[in-house]
């Protein structure tokens, strides 16, 4: 072990010790011997790798499972053929325009089917390679210096894939871009290869509620939540990423993305080859979901807290946020669905217990109309963060509010790290670029691509305000690679790539995320002892606003949202199995809790939900809703192991 690594590990163990000591002092209990909770399976280490912004159908829409396995995707539902062309049931993906009624609706009326969806555009995807404005880079040596976390054979993809087109114009690399029909289309072709940058669809909270178009009026026995997923382009072209409280620009409105949401890769024809290989060799889920409607921040928060987080005074006391930071998705007068207050610089909190608040009646009334009704799980006078605001702390433990007003105050809510620490278990969030970010809290350095909003522990006071805790629980990915070699891996590792390699459309590519994942899997498998006791969950934060045809189960006010990929890689999840149990990000928390005998994080967190019960004829829809799986059924453990 290198010296820095030794010091980090020492700090890690010291931090766990300090946590336990503090806990016991607070409880006033005598100090028993510190004991770690032992796992009930052979899994002693969990690694969660979280990419960015791809739905299940977007990645695995044409995946063909091994004989004996079934999958629900675009191909199996005959929405497309294996060549990516429209299939017999293509109309199942057909999209509509709509007209707002003057207030926000999550299922707007006056729908009208598109003959051809609006032309997909380029958004802000990079026009050309540039060493000063990467990625893509021009110089390989510089690219490898800036991005050291790829499996080496993937480094070349850091130089390729620029659009050659201006921003916010129709993406003419897509054949017949103006006449794509009414539904999904294959993104890739000879003129737009898999290794290409392309636009990013909108993926925000109220936008996604509208895009999924959920109403009990549409409910059926196989789709009891009544989500039609038929308004994706309409929301893209009417509001996209929000108004920030500003009036709409002069017409015609061009959000720069068109119908980007309807694109899918053809994994059967060579796209996403590493993800295809993983799916053929290990276990995937075709019923795993983003846990919150919308985007990155709220979904990573749900992964850490199994709950949404609230606006407070920084000490846990609820407060009302500034007016311009409260969501108002009601349409501005004279517009069709151009939200009043929503955006990255305004409008991200909602008091969803108050039916007089904009946007709230539509969602709450829908939840209450379901059978059985679903509780919004919104506490009185609590403003929940629904979209991306900076975490309360920057890397050195000082407050982020010194740099920007769009920051959620420090959070005192319990998170999965607290549960692990209380049980004597180590955990670390490995964020690529963390070390650079610590010295650059405002992101002034254009090469700083660390994702601050992705780190759930960066919102938490008990981690960020104590240096030893910070150093133990948040590290750069370089330490992960050392751990994989020396076998000194924490019980739970959460791994986040940088903006270069996270797979986020527009700013990254899916092949770069494949290279990031492969780098970890290969290193893990090179350590046989570690490999024998480790489970890797590879997933995404959310679907990025891409269309998906899967079932959505409403769990509370915040989600679930569309399906996302989940690949479970371990010696106990081999054979190309497709798991159909309903799950979301919190399912991984449930796995950790069950494996190590941990209680739910709080009395209201989602990890209290039971495992789903479903009929044999429709394994995708829980009959005991709300319910989410703990993923034990994605493994085949030895018979002596405690089973589900």
């Amino acid at each position, binding site marked *: 072990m290198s010296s820095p690594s030794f010091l980090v590990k020492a700090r890690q163990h010291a931090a766990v010790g300090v946590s336990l000591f503090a806990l016991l002092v607070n409880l006033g209990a005598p100090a028993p011997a510190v004991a770690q909770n032992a796992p009930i399976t052979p899994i002693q280490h969990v690694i969660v790798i979280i990419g960015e912004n791809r739905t299940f159908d977007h990645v695995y829409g044409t995946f063909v499972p091994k004989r004996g396995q079934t999958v629900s995707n675009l191909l199996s539902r005959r929405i497309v053929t294996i060549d990516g062309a429209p299939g017999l049931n293509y109309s199942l993906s057909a999209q509509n325009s709509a007209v707002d009624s003057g207030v926000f609706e999550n299922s707007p009326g006056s729908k009208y089917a598109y003959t051809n969806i609006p032309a997909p555009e380029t958004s802000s995807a990079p026009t050309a390679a540039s060493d000063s404005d990467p990625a893509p880079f021009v110089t390989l040596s510089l690219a490898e210096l800036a991005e050291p976390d790829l499996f080496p054979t993937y480094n070349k993809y850091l130089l390729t894939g620029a659009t050659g087109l201006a*921003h916010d114009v129709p993406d003419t690399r897509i054949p017949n871009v103006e006449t794509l029909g009414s539904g999904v289309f294959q993104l890739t072709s000879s003129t737009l290869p898999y290794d290409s940058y392309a636009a990013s669809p909108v993926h925000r909270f109220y936008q996604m509620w509208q895009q999924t178009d959920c109403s009990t009026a549409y409910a059926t026995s196989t789709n009891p939540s009544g989500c039609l997923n038929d308004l994706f382009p309409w929301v893209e072209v009417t509001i996209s990423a929000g108004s920030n409280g500003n009036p709409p620009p002069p017409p015609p409105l061009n959000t720069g993305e068109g119908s980007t949401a309807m694109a899918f890769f053809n994994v059967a024809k060579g796209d996403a080859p590493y993800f295809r290989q993983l799916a053929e060799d290990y276990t995937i889920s075709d019923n795993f979901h983003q846990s919150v409607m919308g985007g990155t921040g709220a979904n990573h928060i749900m992964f850490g807290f199994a709950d949404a987080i609230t606006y407070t005074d920084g000490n846990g006391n609820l407060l009302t946020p500034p007016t311009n930071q409260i969501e108002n998705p009601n349409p501005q007068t004279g517009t069709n669905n151009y939200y009043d207050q929503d955006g990255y610089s305004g409008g991200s909190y909602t008091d969803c217990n108050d039916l007089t608040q904009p946007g709230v009646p539509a969602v709450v009334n829908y939840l209450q109309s379901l059978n059985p009704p679903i509780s919004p799980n919104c506490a009185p006078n609590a403003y929940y963060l629904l979209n991306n605001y900076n975490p309360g702390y920057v890397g050195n433990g000082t407050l982020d509010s010194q740099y920007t007003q769009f920051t959620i105050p420090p959070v005192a809510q319990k998170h999965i790290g607290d549960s692990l620490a209380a049980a004597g278990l180590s955990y670390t969030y490995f964020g690529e670029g963390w070390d650079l970010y610590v*010295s650059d809290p405002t992101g002034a*350095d254009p090469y700083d691509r660390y994702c601050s909003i992705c780190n759930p522990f960066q919102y938490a006071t008990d981690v960020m305000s104590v240096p030893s805790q910070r150093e133990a629980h948040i590290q750069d990915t370089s330490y992960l690679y050392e751990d994989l070699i020396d076998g000194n891996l924490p019980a739970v590792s959460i791994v986040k790539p940088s903006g270069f390699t996270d797979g986020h459309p527009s700013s990254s590519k899916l092949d770069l995320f494949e290279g990031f994942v492969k780098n970890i899997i290969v290193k893990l498998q090179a350590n046989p002892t570690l490999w024998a006791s480790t489970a890797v969950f590879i997933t995404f934060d959310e679907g990025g606003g891409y269309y998906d045809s899967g079932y959505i189960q409403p769990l509370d006010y915040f989600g679930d949202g569309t399906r996302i990929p989940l690949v479970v890689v371990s010696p106990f999840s081999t054979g190309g199995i497709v798991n159909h149990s309903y799950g979301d990000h919190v399912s991984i928390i449930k796995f950790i809790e069950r494996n190590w005998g941990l209680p739910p994080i709080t009395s209201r967190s989602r990890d209290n939900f039971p495992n789903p019960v479903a009929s044999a004829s429709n394994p995708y829809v829980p009959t005991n809703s709300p319910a989410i799986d703990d993923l034990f059924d994605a493994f085949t453990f030895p018979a002596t192991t405690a089973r589900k």
Partner: protein
Amino acid sequence: MTMTIRKTKRSITRTRCFFFCLAALMLASTFAAAEDNPAKLAGKWQLSWEARLGTERGTMQLDQVGSKLTGTFEGGSLGSPKISGNIECNTVTLNIEFQRTHPFTIIFKGTLDGDKMGGKFEIQGVQSGYDSHGENATPSNYSWTAVRQPDQTQSASAQQKQSDPKEKLHSAKEVGETAATVQRRPGKESWPAFLVRKRWRFENAGSNVEERRFSTA
């Protein structure tokens, strides 16, 4: 009579010509002087700009030779990058070269307005500005501002200059003291008002108000 009229007309023409030439000369000398005496930016400035995740702040220490600017920037943990730039009339350009793992340069362009300057910035070679990652807000208008700060070094220099009566007069004028009540520090002798006015005229030959303001240390 006719002769008288002609003489008078000739005289008027000469007079017009004289004043025209005088005006032209004054105008030319004004521009020439303005070029020779660009606004004084030397000193300490608090700089801020809207970066990807929030507002970055730091202190610039500028030195000036003619229209050329050099200096250093101290801000947070971004190191101490060098500054180069220039001032033309009231148009400022500052290049800050950040020597980090991956060097980058931010170019600040703007105008001077009293003790403040501001405008737009760009990252050299990065047309689209900070990468939003699709998730964070990017700066709304890539704006920057800088405000002149009290500078200990400059203050010391100013104190030294105050031993010179002329410098004393100048700095006193800048802080709004009337010429008639100007006091020498530390000797506290009064300076005659006419000397103050003379100094004022001397200083203002070919320079504008903004330059006068910045001529103080």
